[in-house]
């Protein structure tokens, strides 16, 4: 008889992270100038409760039924995203965007978060159904389209941070589905071109390198040529694309490169976050005592910069402890993805791992200025209902994959 049990380490890690996150959120609300943030932890508690219910429901959901439902879920998510563009409203730190679905002024949620999960599922179904990994760029194209649709819709909101997550989901899924690393690099090359185009020299070197790389790896001739020309045009188009960006997006990118440009405006967030983190020192200033946060120098201390609160109040040791917890969570997800009983489940968990990893690296990196400010939440820490529910569902689904995989002894050999 098969012996099933809950993945205790996954449950434990998740619960610890949720509790630490809640405590951090409570501390983030302890400011000298009273603000709405002081009550946020109570609202988050409600979301957590709702998240647990959804996690249990997700756990109970049959993977087969889920796989069957995926196209519908994906279509619904895309529809919601499209709707957001027309009726969406801004809120809080993203007041200028249309990220929220609201009915009669009550904000219901951010469809982009749900769309991430839907995209993970869609990719899992599409790539999991293949026996062989995509042999070339051409075969990876359907997966690209699955991602491109929500990517475009989210980028139009505009929500650059979430859009980046979708790109990450595509690459994570393709990698897990066995696409050759050289092809992954080629896929990524237009993006690299775009980044390097700001300096003609660096872009020139990159094009030379890319040309050699294409000749060496010998992809399909059409693909190779298409890639090369995409890269070339990216380099040329970079400037006009830059013009297309919203001024605040330009400023964010610029201040990412040099936060001292305008310390009171754009670089303010990065500088204040670094000051908060840096003044925490080795052991921190103590729970609830962060000056930067108390005096409201730290912006968005309950959402985007919640991790800076940990840095200031618990110091490097606190940062190290939470980073270890987060790393263990991702490693646990990889372990579960590896042991999954079927390709769909494996792809699903790998997608969840990619999503969480991207959020963690971008958000945490942002607090010390190694990542641009994109405003994507830190899983289990940042205040926000939609993402908390998304994470809970993702963990619930993963629990089920773990549960199902335990009968398959041969995999554990």
């Amino acid at each position, binding site marked *: 008889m098969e012996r099933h049990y809950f993945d205790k380490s996954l449950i434990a890690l998740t619960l610890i992270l949720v509790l630490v996150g809640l405590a951090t959120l409570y501390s983030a609300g302890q400011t000298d100038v009273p603000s709405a943030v002081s009550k946020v932890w109570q609202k988050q508690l409600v979301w957590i409760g709702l998240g647990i219910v959804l996690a249990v429901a997700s756990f109970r959901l049959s993977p087969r039924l889920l796989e069957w439902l995926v196209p519908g879920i994906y279509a619904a998510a895309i529809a919601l995203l499209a709707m957001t563009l027309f009726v969406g409203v801004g809120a809080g730190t993203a007041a200028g965007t249309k990220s929220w679905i609201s009915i009669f002024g009550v904000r219901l949620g951010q469809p982009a978060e749900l769309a991430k999960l839907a995209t993970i599922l869609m990719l899992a179904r599409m790539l999991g159904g293949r026996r062989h990994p995509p042999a070339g760029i051409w075969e990876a194209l359907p997966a690209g389209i699955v991602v491109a649709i929500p990517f475009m819709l989210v980028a139009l909101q505009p929500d650059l941070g979430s859009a980046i997550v979708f790109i990450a989901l595509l690459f994570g899924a393709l990698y897990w589905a066995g696409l050759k690393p050289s092809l992954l690099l080629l896929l990524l090359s237009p993006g690299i071109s775009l980044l390097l185009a700001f300096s003609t020299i660096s872009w020139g070197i990159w094009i030379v390198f890319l040309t050699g790389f294409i000749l060496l790896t010998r992809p399909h001739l059409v693909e190779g040529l298409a890639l090369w020309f995409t890269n070339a045009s990216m380099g040329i188009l970079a400037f006009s694309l830059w013009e297309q960006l919203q001024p605040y997006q330009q400023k964010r990118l610029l201040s990412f490169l040099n936060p001292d440009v305008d310390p009171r405006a754009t670089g303010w967030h990065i500088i204040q976050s670094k000051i908060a983190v840096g003044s925490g020192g080795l052991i921190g200033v103590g729970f609830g005592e962060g000056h930067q946060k108390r005096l409201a120098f730290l912006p968005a201390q309950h959402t985007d910069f919640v991790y800076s609160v940990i840095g200031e109040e618990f110091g490097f040791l606190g940062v190290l402890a939470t*980073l270890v917890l987060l790393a263990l969570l991702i490693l646990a997800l990889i372990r579960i993805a590896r042991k999954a009983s079927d390709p769909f489940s494996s792809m699903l968990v790998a997608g969840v791992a990619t999503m969480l990893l991207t959020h963690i690296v971008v958000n945490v990196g942002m607090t010390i200025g190694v990542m641009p400010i994109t405003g994507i939440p830190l899983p289990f820490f940042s205040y926000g209902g939609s993402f908390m529910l998304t994470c809970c569902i993702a963990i619930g689904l993963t629990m089920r994959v773990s549960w199902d995989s335990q009968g398959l002894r041969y995999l554990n050999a």
Partner: protein
Amino acid sequence: MTWSHPHEVTRRADASRLVVTLMFVLLAVGFFRIQVLGADRYKLQSTNNRLRPVTLPAPRGLIVDRNGVVLAENEPGYTIALLASDEDSLRSTLERIADRANLDSLKIEAILRRFRRLPHEPTTILRDAPFDLVSAMEESRVMVPGLVIQTEPKRNYPYKETVAHVLGYVGEITEQELASGAIPGARGGTIVGRDGLERQYEDVLRGEDGQRFIEVDALGRTVREVLDGSTLERERQGDTLFTTLDIGLQEFVADVFPAGWRGAVVAMVPGTGEVLALYSSPSFDPNLFVGGMDPETWRQLSQAEDTPLFNRATEGRYPPASPFKLAVAESALLRGLVDMDTHMETPCEGGMLYGNRYFRCWKADGHGSLTLREAIQYSCDVYFYQLGLQLTLSNLLSDGVDMGFSDRSGIDLPHERTPLFPESIEYFNRRYGQRGRDWTSGVTLNMAIGQGENDQTVINMVKFYAKLANPQGRAPDPWLVQGDGGEETSLGLSEQALADLREALYLVVEEGTAVGARVESVRIAGKTGTAQNPHGRPHGWFVGFAPLEDPKIVVGAIVEFAEHGSTVAHVVTNIIHRYLLGPEVEPARVIEYLLPSDSAPEPIPILPDTSRGRRIPSEDVSGTALFR
């Protein structure tokens, strides 16, 4: 091989683990750099972030008179300031309170400039704010983020107009002064001395500002005061300035000076140079400058025709006229040309012919043949014309330089004007050309009666008479707080000769040109003078000292457009009387005018008008008498 074959999956999982671990390690390294290696720097930044220094302005030192009576003090005033995070938020706050605080767009711009200079410190909105405004602001604190109300010592001059020119006034340091670093140790918003002793002794009076810290949030709102004693720097009040002034006498001077007339009075102790009173009329109320003056008042003060801000005692220059005759006499005695009983060749018949010009004496009837003593007593111009010619112009000029007529008195007040006095005949050559062709010895005659190229300040004339008054013929520079230790040069006459001159000056008051100002019970020596004024009616002089045997006070006075020096004599003798006999004794009443005054003759048009000094603009004084 399918992609989901366990071996394939395990291989990719291992690679993924490596990549994930690497990412987290890199993040940890990033945090290590900032939190462990950079902790000190960021801790400092965090502290600077939330603490704002607030200056505790040091009260300026007191200024007291010789008896310890306070002439300049401080009283608590309220300053309204704002802490702001950026210019836009400051502007919007200012616009919100503009009506209540009476701020126009000009003032708002000035405040914003102040903010740009020191953005992290409270920006002063209003100095010396009225109490009802302060309490109104305090009540609406919620509407005015970053409000800081400070008590700030505010200068007060209890004697108002009476001592204005000696004390000067104070004002906030200007942006130019701040930029040029003209006033060491001053910072934005510092109150600095603007004139008078306030300016002269700025370093002594200013003291040291203190500093406290307040903790603010990112929006610049004050959260709490930091009470940690180690961060508080107490302010230190400036030192008290002990002056030589006698405020009782000063008040008397201001009182006795003819109201509505322009002029100046200086009273000094001849033996020590201590200035007892220094008054310039018209005066102003220095309290008007405290807390910033509104432009309209400033315009009125600075552009008034009678220039109240101008210190006529040290900055006004006037032809010395008859009082200068003592310098001519001194010079002639020193050179042994005459003694007190010498007669001149030509007796005074109301004037004398020199060259082809007729030089008149003030007394048209003539004085007849006089001794030097009598010539001083009656201020005979004809006698001094001849004495000047005997002396020669170059001797007259070089002796005048020796007696200090080309130098400032050295009083410790800012802006003292250097007198106009040619140092040699080269001056005339340079200016007019060749002697005999372009200018003649007629100059000598004018110089000999204190007219012409000779403009002196009241303080400098008082200094000269102090030398006459002192037995050794020497006197220190006048001073209010501390003497400059300048070398005392002697007039060089014997004690007997000096005593003879004093005797002659005594006779001026006893029975000469100033007899109308004679007072009972005090033996006063002095000299009247009526300075011809090319811009209007003559100025009246009197310089005198008393008591004759052992002078304790020397007083000089000028009244612009006063017509007659003998009328000014009355003012001076009253001051001397008051000083020597005290305020209890009724001032001696002036008897009546017995003699006509020693009005200098109409100026002989020898030279173009060259006294390009800062002239007091003339005014059409309709023939009102000075005293009724």
